[in-house]
């Protein structure tokens, strides 16, 4: 305790006072760390909010169920219920139906409708009515059963829709619009928390009538009797129709979780880079303090301080900067989180699973984690300078004259380890992910940054040596002196270059990756999402196309557009060994006449005819990467009542969802198995003149007139546009993270150069004393900045290209299962890199201005 007291006191005397003597530099470093920490924290918290909302929602929906019986791709027939009811292993069961519905003629968002039998369900899910109802002595769930088209709304939903118990709401679904009477509202708790509170409960019979699902349910939840053995459960499974599957209720939650977590990891890594860049800031300040105070350190040692004491002092300095940065990060994160939660949840909802984060679940773990990460990074950054401080010998206190910065030697010594780090990326990038997480890939990225940063001193000196003599003639003596300074400079100057390299590399690689991604998606959209008008059941998309279009409408649609080709399709949501995917059976022949696929594996020439005939299926890249199934393999699936075996003919790119997609011929499916019906249809006009848009509008109006309340429509153009908009929105987050990393890197330049100026006050004054003008001396600093920026940009660009390759072919492939056609956006790089360079040079201005603050006469004052 006394030792700690003593340490704290020395720390305050020696380190804290020194930091407060130059508040400007300390503040910039703290701000840099704070930005990095804030980005990191807010990204983590935002994704966590979605994850938490998803899990809570799933948990409330799953309730107490131990097993769930489902029909892959379809509905569980109610005929299974008697089997379950009489089986000795089953203690309780409850059929459940869920869907999204939308208030009719209202701008309100869709919400979640649960259909249950209120009596059977009581053992499974908790829900409680608002007090008001019970007071009147009625039994609301009894009313729910007795009175058709009644429902119970959650309180927030009732408030949003402006109804109270006894009021009426009209709801849209695939079979049209129907009015419901609101019986009561739910107390917040249990089921009422599903989907962030956007939920309503209705009786199963009402639900079935409303959606047209007579005799079918989504699933049947089961609770077994105590001491039920595995054999008994197996026996139950064999007693059920063969096509039924029994799953643990966590299956859907686990796959959703895995997807969100992969996304969280990616964003975390991306945001961590800002923190990593901030690390360079801490390093530069602590290292420069340690170097500039060498004599003080020697004096401390001479007075009896142990090397360990000096080591701890500088480590504590790093920790203090980290702590201060984290504290400043708290309000910053608050600002960022507000924005991020919205964008992140929208991205997750479109790409993976629907989430409704209602409140910010401030997880203590996430806060602790970000605190730990920030502190760790800051202390790590201080480690090397602290080691160097340890090595100061007491006898240096008696030496006079300046020491030469230990430049060339260390710089060259770093080249080999640097090359080693960079070279290690190759084998790492070939390794598989661990548990679906591209850990070797991330390690490769880290090593890449470290390698290039270690190379920075050597490159800087090389550039100084190479250019200094020539520049003396062309650009004058300041350029020459700057070059001389760099050619023998230590590793410390290179630090801001390391930060810049990292930020530029990140920038270049993301520009390349996002561009490649977008171009590929554009190509895919044009090919695979071709069509002039897309029609599906009402709320088809949000309900994942589960409800087929009624027969009579199908017949009507076919008659409506004689001048258009029709491609019918049906989508099934299935699982292959736990991995969720979508099977799309579609009118292949007509589709291939107008659209197509973006091929990855297999020869289109030979495959297309076979695909048309229905000899096999195409699988998406994601599906192939996740399941290991590829050309030549066979896909087994249970679809509604049919067991289906499809040879895989080829692999194509698809970016519809994070899950996999399998394409197969609709007509052949009907021949071989059963009539799948239509869950959607697209129209292609044969006459592709300039009036296609008008034709689309005309057809659309006609369909709307006849079946408007039962179908959703979107023009192909609008659909393709919205896909690209969602894409751009998704990457808006990335762009912000990127921008912040660049800001932190610019702060790094400001600190490093300012400190270098302060540290060299004496040298710069000497130059003034022997005839250097103010302009020449400012020129030296500006040229130093120019060298730094040049090396940072060139090395950053090279590093960025390697990184982009890792992102496209390793990280994306392993985290999401997809890759893209690699294309470089030279235009964007050509105008943004000079812009970054200018900004970085701009960051040098404070340093340039701080030159000659004191008159050169201070030279004559001996310390």
């Amino acid at each position, binding site marked *: 305790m006394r030792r700690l007291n003593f340490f704290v006191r020395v720390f305050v005397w020696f380190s804290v006072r020194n930091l407060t003597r130059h508040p400007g530099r300390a503040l910039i470093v703290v701000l840099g760390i704070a930005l990095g920490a804030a980005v990191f924290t807010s990204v983590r918290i935002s994704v966590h909010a979605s994850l938490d909302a998803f899990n809570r929602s799933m948990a409330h929906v799953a309730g107490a169920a131990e097993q769930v019986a489902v029909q892959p791709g379809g509905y569980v027939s109610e005929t299974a219920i008697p089997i379950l009811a009489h089986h000795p292993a089953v203690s309780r069961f409850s059929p459940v139906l869920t869907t999204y519905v939308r208030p009719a003629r209202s701008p309100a968002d869709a919400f979640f409708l649960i259909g249950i039998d209120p009596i059977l369900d009581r053992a499974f899910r908790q829900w409680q009515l608002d007090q008001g109802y019970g007071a009147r002595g009625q039994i609301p769930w009894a009313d729910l059963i007795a009175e058709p088209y009644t429902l119970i709304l959650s309180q927030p939903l009732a408030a949003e829709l402006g109804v109270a118990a006894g009021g009426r709401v009209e709801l849209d679904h695939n079979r049209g619009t129907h009015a419901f009477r609101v019986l009561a509202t739910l107390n917040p708790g249990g089921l009422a928390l599903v989907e962030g509170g956007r939920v309503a409960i209705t009786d199963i019979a009402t639900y079935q009538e409303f959606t047209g699902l007579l005799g079918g349910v989504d699933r049947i939840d089961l609770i077994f009797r105590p001491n039920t053995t595995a054999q008994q459960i197996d026996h139950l499974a064999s007693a059920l129709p063969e096509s039924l599957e029994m799953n643990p209720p966590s299956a859907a939650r686990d796959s959703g979780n895995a997807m969100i977590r992969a996304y969280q990891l990616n964003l975390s890594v991306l945001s961590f880079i800002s923190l990593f860049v901030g690390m360079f800031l801490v390093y530069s300040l602590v290292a420069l303090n340690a170097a500039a105070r060498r004599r003080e350190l020697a004096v401390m040692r001479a007075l009896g301080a142990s090397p360990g004491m000096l080591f701890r002092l500088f480590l504590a300095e790093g920790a203090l900067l980290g702590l201060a940065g984290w504290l400043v990060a708290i309000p910053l994160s608050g600002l960022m989180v507000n924005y991020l939660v919205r964008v992140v949840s929208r991205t997750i909802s479109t790409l993976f699973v629907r989430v409704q984060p209602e409140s910010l679940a401030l997880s203590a773990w996430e806060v602790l984690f970000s605190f730990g990460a920030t502190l760790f990074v800051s202390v790590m950054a201080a480690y090397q300078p602290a080691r160097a401080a340890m090595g100061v010998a007491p006898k240096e206190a008696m030496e006079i*004259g300046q020491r030469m910065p230990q430049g060339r030697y260390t710089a060259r010594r770093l080249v080999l380890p640097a090359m080693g780090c960079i070279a290690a990326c190759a084998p790492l990038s070939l390794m598989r992910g661990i548990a679906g997480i591209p850990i070797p890939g991330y390690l490769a990225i880290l090593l890449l940054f470290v390698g290039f940063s270690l190379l920075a001193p050597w490159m800087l000196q090389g550039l100084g040596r190479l250019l200094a003599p020539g520049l003396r003639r062309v650009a004058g003596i300041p350029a020459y002196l700057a070059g*001389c300074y760099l050619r023998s400079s230590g590793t410390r100057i290179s630090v801001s270059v390391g930060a810049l390299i990292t930020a530029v590399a990140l920038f270049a690689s993301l520009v390349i990756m996002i561009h490649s991604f977008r171009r590929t998606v554009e190509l895919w959209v044009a090919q695979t999402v071709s069509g002039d008008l897309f029609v599906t059941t009402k709320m088809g998309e949000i309900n994942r196309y589960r409800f087929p279009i009624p027969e009579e409408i199908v017949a009507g649609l076919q008659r409506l557009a004689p001048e258009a080709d029709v491609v019918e399709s049906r989508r099934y949501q299935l699982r292959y060994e736990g991995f969720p995917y979508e099977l799309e059976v579609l009118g292949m022949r007509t589709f291939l006449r107008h659209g197509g696929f973006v091929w990855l594996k297999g020869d289109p020439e030979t495959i297309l005819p076979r695909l048309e005939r229905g000899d096999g299926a195409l699988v998406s890249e994601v599906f192939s990467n996740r399941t290991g199934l590829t050309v030549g393999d066979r896909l087994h699936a249970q679809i509604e009542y049919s067991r289906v075996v499809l040879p895989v003919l080829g692999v194509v790119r698809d970016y519809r969802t994070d899950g996999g997609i399998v394409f197969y011929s609709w007509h052949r499916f009907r021949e071989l198995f059963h009539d799948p019906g239509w869950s959607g249809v697209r129209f292609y006009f044969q006459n592709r003149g300039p009036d296609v848009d008008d034709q689309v509008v005309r057809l659309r109006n006609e369909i709307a007139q006849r079946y408007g309340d039962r179908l959703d429509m979107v023009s192909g153009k609008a659909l393709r546009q919205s896909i690209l908009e969602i894409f751009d929105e998704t990457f808006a987050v990335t762009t912000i993270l990127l921008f912040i990393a660049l800001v932190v890197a610019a702060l790094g330049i400001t600190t490093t150069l300012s400190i270098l100026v302060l540290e060299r006050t004496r040298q710069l004054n000497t130059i003034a*004393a022997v005839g250097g003008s103010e302009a020449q001396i400012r020129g030296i600093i500006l040229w130093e900045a120019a060298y730094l920026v040049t090396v940072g940009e060139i090395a950053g660009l090279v590093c960025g290209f390697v990184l982009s390759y890792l992102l496209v072919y390793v990280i994306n492939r392993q985290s999401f299962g997809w890759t893209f056609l690699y294309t470089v956006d030279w235009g964007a790089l050509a105008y943004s890199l000079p812009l970054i360079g200018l900004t970085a040079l701009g960051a040098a201005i404070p340093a340039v201005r701080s030159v000659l603050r004191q008159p050169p006469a201070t030279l004559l004052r*001996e310390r």
Partner: protein
Amino acid sequence: MMETGARRDPLILTRNLTRIYTVGGSSVAGINAVDLVIAPAELVVLKGNSGSGKSTLLSLLAGLDRPTSGDLLVAGHDLGNRRATDLTDFRRNVVGMVFQSFNLLPTLTVLENVLLPALLAARPAEPARRKAEELLDWLGLKSRREHFPAQLSGGEMQRTAIARALINDPALILADEPTGNLDSRNGRLVMDLLAELNRRSGCTVLIATHSDLADALATRRLFLSDGALREDACDA
């Protein structure tokens, strides 16, 4: 080069020269009402205790600082009221400085250090280079040209600094405690060099020191105490 001209034109002329430092609220007089006339080709030793104002006077004469009040004329330049750029030209062409702690640039070699003032003044490179090499030969640093300052001894560093002070043929050499960081043998060598240079090229040398090494060489001795100047009779 400045025409230092007729014998009677003084090289340095100050009247009532005063420099007052204000630190915080209080003010300290570095030098106070100094009247001084120095003729060309003199070798002046300026003595005084630590804190007596020697460095202050030198920094004013070197154009590194500005007087608070009083007149200051060096080689015909009025340093009392001038703009900064003029002072730069003055430093380039009129004075050469030698410091107690050498102040060589650690990132430049010996030769580059010597060349620096010529380069800053945009003098033609080749003649400057020849001159630098001559100076280094004269100072016994021929074999050290490509070395960095960190590889030199104190005496060698100070001789490099002298060569640097001479590269632009200044009319005035100002040396502030040039032997302060040297042992007595090297100290004597440096003093002898400054005297030789005064004899050979006739440039004016002003040495601020509190050692007695230069007493015998001086043509004139001045004493500063508490910022006030007192002339001392010279035996020479």
